[in-house]
């Protein structure tokens, strides 16, 4: 590679490099990344880490406190609380990723359409967005689950269809600012279609704020889903969903507090990790973003 080529390569990637450098220097973000990766590893290697299968009952050893055999104690039917939490991390990731993907899918699509076409399309989409936004997601999701019935899948679907509004709002605003830029004009001048302009010219330029938003949406999706499981409308036994585990331990709070305490701690740590990471991404990619 010649000196000139090197310089060009450096220049092209310099913005992303700057951003990554800023991210690397952001201590909370690195802590958050560490926590997130740790939880991810736990989820991937759950069978190796968990000392027992998550649904293995041992009726001789119910309500035992933490011990060597059962690091975080046992529950009402002698299942290992630690193993259940370890397996629960898989559900937490699954729920978070699915909810965020659906939300981002709906939200970004609507935002692109509203921002690009403007006019009546914008009025209609913005109206729908404002209306959905008038409901706290938890409340509307609970309403939907009343109708379609409880279950993890239903909860995930309900949360996803009620809380995409932030993606639409951010995308719409960004598209409006990008739409009139020279490179889009240039694309239009060489006869690119609307679809091509949206997907190849505009979309890549609105990804940064959406990435930040997705990182910050993950923990809130996890909190909402756990709240619904905690109320008994989400994952059903014996699924080791963290919210459901907390609910199972509620009755025994006095005699066996470990059953509820540790799953809640797992939720708190995971959510904290994602929030730290999301903050760091925001500071690195788009410090002026108000999220």
């Amino acid at each position, binding site marked *: 590679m010649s000196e000139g080529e090197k310089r060009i390569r450096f220049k092209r990637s310099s913005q992303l490099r700057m951003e990554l450098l800023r991210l690397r220097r952001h201590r*909370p973000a690195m802590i958050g990344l560490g926590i997130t990766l740790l939880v991810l590893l736990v989820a991937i290697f759950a069978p190796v880490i968990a000392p027992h299968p998550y649904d293995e009952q041992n009726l001789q050893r119910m309500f035992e406190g933490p011990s060597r055999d059962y690091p975080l104690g046992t529950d009402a039917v002698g299942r290992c609380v630690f193993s259940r939490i370890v397996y629960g991390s898989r559900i937490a990731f699954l729920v978070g990723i699915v909810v965020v993907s659906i939300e981002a899918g709906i939200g970004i699509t609507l935002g692109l359409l509203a921002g690009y076409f403007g006019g009546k399309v914008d009025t209609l989409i913005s*109206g*729908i967005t*404002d*209306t*959905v936004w*008038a*409901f*706290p997601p*938890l*409340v*509307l999701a*609970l*309403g*939907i*689950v*009343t*109708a*379609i019935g409880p279950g993890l899948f239903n909860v995930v679907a309900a949360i996803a269809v009620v809380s995409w509004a932030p993606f639409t709002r951010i995308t719409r605003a960004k598209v409006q600012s990008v739409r009139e830029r020279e490179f889009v004009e240039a694309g239009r001048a060489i006869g690119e279609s609307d679809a091509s302009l949206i997907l190849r010219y505009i979309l890549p330029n609105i990804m940064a704020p959406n990435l930040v938003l997705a990182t910050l949406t993950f*923990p809130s999706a996890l*909190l909402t889903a*756990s*709240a619904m499981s*905690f*109320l*008994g*409308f989400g994952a059903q036994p014996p699924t080791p969903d963290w*919210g459901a585990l*907390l609910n199972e331990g*509620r009755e025994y*709070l*006095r005699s066996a*507090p470990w059953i*509820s*305490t540790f*799953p*809640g*701690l797992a*939720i*708190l740590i995971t*959510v*904290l990790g994602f*929030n*730290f990471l999301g*903050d760091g991404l925001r500071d690195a990619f788009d410090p002026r973003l*108000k999220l």
Partner: protein
Amino acid sequence: MTGMRRYVLTRIAAAIPVVLGATVIVFSIMHLTPGDPVRLILGFERASPERIAEVRAQLGLDQPIYVQYVRWLSGALRGDFGISIAAKRSASQLIFERLPYTLELTATAMLISILLGIPLGVISAVKQYTVVDHVSMAVALFWLSMPVFWLGLMLMLLFGLRLGWLPISGSSGIKSLIMPALTLGLPEIGMLARLMRSEMLEVLREDYIMTARAKGLRELIVMYKHALRNAIISVMVYLFLQIPWLVGGAVVVETVFAWPGMGRLMYKAILTKDFPIVQGVIFVIAILTVLFNLLGDIFTGFLDPRIRYE
């Protein structure tokens, strides 16, 4: 004052389609049910054909869908959500009996979050980039990440079961209010402190702050009389918007502490598929959201004349 009047009227006009849209969403909820909602509602109850017909008529489900919607809409706009299937009483009566409890809880929670969150944000901004700032923001993020239901159980474990200071459920006087209000209010500190900090930092960059300092005013006066007073406006608007969200969060908190509010009513209604109650509560919360949004807009418009003429 005419500018203000026009501004308020435009804001109200803008809120109307949202309310109508909300009625469509709330009305549609019951019709998301796969199969016959009446059978779902009656569940395993060995319902006679007469009972099925009775509930169907009671819910108006024997009518075409648009008639059902119009009937539901005209009822809902007058605060009538139909008859509760479980209690066989007016759903709105049940809801409005419980609403004061929820509002009491929400107001107390909000007070707690204001008293703790705003000072945290201000201190953080004043001491920007110092240890105090970093610690305060870590504390804020900690509360922001808190699962409400877990916090409730932990408070219950500590203050109710271990120390025995506070009752773990019910609503017997001020003592029963403390734990539910802390559970709902403490996680709010996070967002509030972060917002307060960023607004404060923005104001501190303004010219009039420099002017105040150049005049030789004491730093304390600059901070609290000039900066805080201006920064707090958008924080107050945020608080307006936060009220309906807290009312929503009350579903979880009231269930944990058996607090006899609207949220617990909704929780029980979900278990029994009591649609008129569920729809009523959701609609009340949506109306609160629209209302407080409107109040927030009017409040800013009142304090900041520039916004009115946009």
